[in-house]
């Protein structure tokens, strides 16, 4: 099993759209995919996949981390709803204010116990549930839940927009967390537009310049698509429009994932 964290230094870079669509792309290739909403401060997957849920959510990821359910009870299989070739199972974060408040006020001891639970969950995905890919959609910046997900992942994908604030934030985050954790880390430049590049360079050299500054490879440069922007997080283009250029870009990312 390969565990992938999708992260960014700032909000609104496109993490969730990329995480959900990449999960759908992999599931449509026949793989068994677990997609976990690890953005406990601003959960969105319960809304994105609401139509696919045919009954109220019994156990949230919050319940698992709080010790209220077992590893095997946290995933919800939504493959049939989307008629996917493989399996797509989601672990959802509870969007209620009470649950968000509860998980943002935990002690260091609880967070240490949470990482152990996370490793046990991943071990169960791998050995008992036959999961091929586990994808974490994390909360931006330095949150405990995100750092826990990064620590338990094989590879981290940073979603970056081409502006100076995001570039500086990403550079600091790489130095202070990712490089210390010694994780394989790659970058996707999302909503890329030649006009808003922070590095004054030819478009073809831009990714190279970013690699030189951040010292991590850029594996994809996804252009800014108006229809993706309009649909925002609800855009499940990998299912609705599999030939969309945005999905084709994610197909290319999926091709590279095993080599990361």
């Amino acid at each position, binding site marked *: 099993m390969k565990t992938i964290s999708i992260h960014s230094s700032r909000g609104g870079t496109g993490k969730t759209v990329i995480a959900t669509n990449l999960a759908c792309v992999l599931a449509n290739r026949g793989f068994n995919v677990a997609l976990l909403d690890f953005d406990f401060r601003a959960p969105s997957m319960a809304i994105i996949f609401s139509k696919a849920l045919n009954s109220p959510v019994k156990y949230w990821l919050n319940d698992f981390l*709080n010790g209220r359910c077992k590893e095997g009870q946290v995933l919800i299989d939504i493959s049939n709803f989307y008629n996917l070739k493989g399996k797509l199972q989601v672990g959802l974060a509870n969007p209620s204010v009470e649950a968000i408040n*509860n998980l943002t006020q*935990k*002690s*260091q*001891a*609880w*967070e*240490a*116990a949470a*990482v*152990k639970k*996370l*490793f046990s969950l991943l*071990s169960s995905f791998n050995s008992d549930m036959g999961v091929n890919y586990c994808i974490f959609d994390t909360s931006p910046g*330095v949150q*405990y839940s995100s*750092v*826990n997900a*990064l*620590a*338990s992942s094989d590879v981290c994908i940073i979603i970056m927009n081409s502006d100076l604030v995001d570039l500086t934030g990403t550079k600091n985050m790489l130095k*202070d*967390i990712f490089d*210390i*954790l*010694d994780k394989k880390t790659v970058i996707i430049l999302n909503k890329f537009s030649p006009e808003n590049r922070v590095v004054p360079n030819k478009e073809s050299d831009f990714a190279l310049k970013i690699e030189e500054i951040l010292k991590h490879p850029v594996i994809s440069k996804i252009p800014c698509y108006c229809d993706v922007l309009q649909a925002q997080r609800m855009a499940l283009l990998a299912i609705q429009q599999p030939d969309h250029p945005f999905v084709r870009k994610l197909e290319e990312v999926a091709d590279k994932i095993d080599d990361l």
Partner: protein
Amino acid sequence: MDLLAKIFEQLKLLNTKLDSLNENNDKLLKMFEILNETSIKTSLNPQADVITLLTLPASLRKTAMALYRFERATADEIAKTTGRLRAVESASANQLVRTGFIKKKREGRTVYFSIEPKLEDEK
């Protein structure tokens, strides 16, 4: 007579000053006690959460991170996860035990290490 009165007055003044010094001394001692208690509590209760581990030297962090995968593990089992020598993991784990980040338990001839966070009154 005047001289005796003056000496008496001076002694009273001295006494008041000594009382004030004693009071300040007591306050300082109390502050030292509080400071000592706080530093002892901090050093006795370190937590092995990921953000705290980021502040540890790489060698210790690697051992602690590997331990997350186990309920408890021997130095040999940790070494198989990290790809380092058993002796390196043993030294590193024992240092983590001494600093209070992890626990150590001996069963017969086998020594087990574990991360055991103390969860108090958390829902």
